[in-house]
């Protein structure tokens, strides 16, 4: 394969994945509104198109059409940079996520992954840690006390929970001996659900910690303090309107999908089927290529439903409770998990 | 494809380029340390110098195919993290006491 071909294929993959990701973000919003509606015993959006399926597109058009207000007191360069930074970081990390069998395209090309990186997991963590800046700068440059309070809360929360998030993944990495996301998934493939890291790998404690830290990392309820409407009038994006607000909104949902992808890859066996190699692979080449994608999407979808379910059920934490929970419960538990896993690996 | 483009794509970079970059970055850090008058920016210049030194460590590790150079960078990062935590705590304490961050105004040992 020449360099030119490689570039063209990569460009194609990037475009397709980005479009699918943005559509996924739009329909995650609809999923959340529908599900929360059902939880609260109402219908949710059902006027635009069949079952309200066109609602996200109409919402997007509305955001585009709205007047783009920039308040007088803001610090302009950073005010404009912040939403781009937030959305950019949220969309980049999908680039190292594998979502199908390797080497299936023409000439042994990885059709179902933009790039196979040796340190894929670390890349995702690095990009996630970069996402803090979008929120921090948004709050500071808005020149509004609610925004500043929201962004101070948020950056403290993100940095605190990042620690627990990172440490909860160490157990999985120790078992696999690699940061490569493909290797991590292939290790879990053999017997399906019995060899998934969450069950066969004895990492359910790690999964619990990851789940809690992920809720906090994506600013989702019950840890949605940075944008607590009732106390901060919206937090860091108080001063943002129209498309710039929509970018923050999309970044939040894109981050939810990212977190779901990482959970799927590390704990739930990635693109492999829950039955593992017990059933023979299908003969048809298209079915063979598309089945893994089906499983991957199904797992991420289940994770997103869990997110919405929790949001519809739990009330918000208080700020000191949040910090206590992060530092005094999750962090020691994560370290305990690492010690336990290494003991298990040593004396197995 | 055009052969000149292909040769450009496969050309290697001499390690001197990396070392020169590191030297220039270090010098810019020193200049920042001397010129800037804000305590936080002065501190940032120090971080810039540390980063420049790290780059030359990584370059030499690449040249000798030695892992220890990279591990040294790892240690520098850990020390820099500790230094940043303590340094910024000191800056907060100074700001509370003096209500200024200009290095020229902070010239007394006692309040």
């Amino acid at each position, binding site marked *: 394969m020449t360099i030119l071909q490689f570039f063209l294929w990569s460009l194609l993959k990037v475009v397709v994945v980005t479009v699918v990701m943005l559509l996924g973000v739009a329909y995650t919003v609809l999923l959340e509104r529908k599900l929360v509606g059902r939880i609260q015993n109402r219908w949710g959006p059902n006027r635009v198109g069949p079952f309200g399926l066109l609602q996200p597109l109409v919402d997007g058009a509305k955001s585009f059409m709205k007047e783009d207000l920039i308040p007088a007191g803001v610090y302009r360069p950073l005010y404009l940079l912040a939403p781009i930074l937030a959305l950019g970081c949220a969309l980049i990390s999908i680039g190292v996520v594998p979502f199908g069998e390797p080497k299936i395209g023409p000439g042994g090309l990885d059709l179902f992954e933009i790039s196979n990186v040796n340190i894929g997991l670390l890349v995702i963590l690095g990009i996630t840690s970069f996402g803090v800046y979008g929120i921090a700068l948004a709050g500071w440059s808005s020149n509004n006390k609610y925004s500043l309070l929201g962004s101070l809360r948020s950056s403290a929360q993100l940095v605190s929970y990042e620690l627990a998030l990172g440490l909860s993944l160490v157990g999985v990495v120790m078992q696999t001996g690699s940061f490569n996301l493909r290797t991590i998934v292939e290790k879990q493939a053999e017997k399906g659900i019995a060899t998934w890291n969450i069950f066969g790998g004895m990492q359910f404690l790690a999964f619990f910690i990851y789940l809690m830290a992920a809720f906090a990392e994506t600013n989702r309820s019950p840890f949605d303090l940075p944008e607590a409407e009732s106390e901060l009038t919206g937090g860091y994006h108080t001063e943002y309107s129209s498309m710039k607000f929509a970018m923050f909104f999309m970044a939040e949902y894109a981050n939810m999908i990212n977190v779901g992808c990482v959970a799927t890859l590390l704990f739930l066996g990635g693109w492999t089927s829950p039955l593992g190699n017990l059933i023979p692979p299908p003969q048809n080449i298209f079915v063979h290529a598309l089945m893994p994608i089906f499983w991957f999407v199904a797992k991420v979808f289940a994770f997103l439903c869990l997110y919405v379910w929790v949001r519809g059920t739990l009330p918000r934490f208080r700020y000191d409770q949040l910090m206590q929970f992060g530092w005094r419960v999750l962090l020691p538990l994560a370290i305990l998990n690492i010690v336990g896993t290494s003991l298990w690996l040593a004396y197995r | 494809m055009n052969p000149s483009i292909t040769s450009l*794509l496969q050309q290697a970079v001499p390690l001197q380029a990396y070392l020169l970059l590191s030297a220039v970055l270090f010098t*810019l850090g020193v200049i920042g340390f001397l010129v800037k008058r804000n305590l936080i920016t002065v501190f940032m210049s120090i971080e810039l110098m540390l980063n420049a030194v790290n780059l030359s460590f990584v370059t030499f590790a690449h040249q000798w195919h030695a892992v220890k150079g990279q591990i040294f960078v790892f240690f520098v990062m850990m*020390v820099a993290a500790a230094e940043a935590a303590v340094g910024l705590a000191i800056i907060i304490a100074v700001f509370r006491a003096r209500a200024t961050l200009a290095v020229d105004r902070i010239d007394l040992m006692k309040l």
Partner: protein
Amino acid sequence: MHVILFVVFAGFCLGGAINLLLQSHPINSALSLIVVMSSLAVLYLLLGAEFLAAAQMIVYAGAIMVLFTFVVMLLNAGREERTLGSRAAGIIGFPAVVALLAVLATVLLRTRDLGTAALSQGITSTEELSTVLFTKLLLPFEVTSVLILIAILGAVALARHGNGDSGGNQERTEAK
């Protein structure tokens, strides 16, 4: 490919570092420093240091610089005041800097056999790195962890005394 990537990201590095000097507001300087650090991470990748590139992103760009921006935001430190520079800096500092750069540049340009760096050559895997770190250099590693513990205690002690408004930054310092 290596040449193009090197030129682009070395340019980002230099641009960021110069911008750090030119900007008068600390938050702009902090952002330029973030640009420098992220480009350095790419240069580490080019030199085959994968793990260090990730660590550079996570530790430097993602944690240390967040701490800097956080302090700038917290203190709401405005523009830099124009004051007279130190006299020692003018007399000794700048000539010394120029001399340092000159000496380094001459030495580097005279050395001929340093070798080159090309794409996907001499990549250090995380495994090699951790093997050396946790066997031969275990003691320094543990000593560093003690150092970080002391730093945490020091930071908490420094930031804690004072009145009630210290709650936020105390937690933030613990986050380190």
